[in-house]
């Protein structure tokens, strides 16, 4: 998905900004009120993960709490980091005469919270990280992901490009990377490129 529009066929959804994300949430998740506390990057990553897991038949029933699993990590990449939350927070503390920093805005001024939100929802206790890159770079991503799979415990990584410049400009493309697939760096870089290029088609 990108910039308030789905990229593949499916039911009609609200387009534009955060309304699109809210509509996706109501249609495909609907039982996680904490969603509305997240910043736009957090909502984007959360929804991308939930939709991916739905496709993989790993949806949660309403109210279901999954069993913790340490064999799965969440490793995301993006360019704009938590810029949207940063600017939102800065704007909220500009007025010295009305200076009341918001904890719930401040808590999202780090992009790795996005990976954390996915891990909290799904009880993943493996690796959790968000890497900020100057631009999408499949080679760097492949190298990092293969490094994350080196330990004996990690068996899979929920990964991909999850990037948010502002409420109107965002994109996400995610995949599940299985250790058992035994990717080489070249193969994985090619797969990541294929995944990312779908955003621009």
């Amino acid at each position, binding site marked *: 998905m990108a910039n308030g529009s789905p990229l593949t066929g499916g039911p009609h959804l609200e387009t534009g900004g955060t309304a699109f994300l809210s509509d996706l949430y109501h249609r495909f998740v609907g039982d996680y009120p904490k969603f509305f506390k997240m910043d736009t990057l957090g909502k984007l990553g959360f929804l991308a993960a939930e939709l991916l897991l739905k496709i993989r038949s790993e949806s949660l029933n309403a109210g279901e709490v999954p069993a913790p699993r340490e064999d799965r990590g969440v490793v995301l990449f993006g360019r704009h980091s938590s810029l949207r939350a940063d600017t939102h927070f800065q704007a909220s503390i500009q007025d010295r005469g009305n200076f*009341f920093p*918001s904890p719930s805005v401040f808590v999202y001024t780090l992009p790795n919270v996005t990976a954390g939100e996915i891990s909290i929802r799904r009880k993943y206790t493996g690796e959790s990280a968000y890497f900020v890159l100057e631009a999408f770079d499949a080679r760097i991503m492949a190298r990092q992901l293969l490094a994350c799979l080196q330990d004996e415990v990690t068996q899979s990584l929920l990964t991909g490009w999850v990037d948010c410049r502002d409420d109107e400009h965002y994109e996400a493309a995610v995949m599940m990377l299985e250790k058992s697939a035994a990717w080489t760096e070249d193969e994985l870089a090619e797969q990541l490129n294929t995944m990312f290029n779908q955003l621009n088609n």
Partner: protein
Amino acid sequence: MEELILKLKEEIIEVLNLEDIKPEDIDNDAPLFGEGLGLDSIDALELIVLMEKNYGIKLQDPSKGKEIFKSINVMAEYITANRTK
């Protein structure tokens, strides 16, 4: 007091982004944390900010928040007794 309770509910819904909740959905005596609304520690900090910003009440000891934020009714009574705005 009823007017304050309604105002408080609306403020809480707004600052805590409780998007799917209306004031009438919040029981005045239900716990705000744990069960009930299921608020968390970040929400507690937001409520402390709300108290100061909207009612001029500065909590010198944030750990007292657990008693003050027990329910909407307890919160409203505390605000009534201590507000400076």
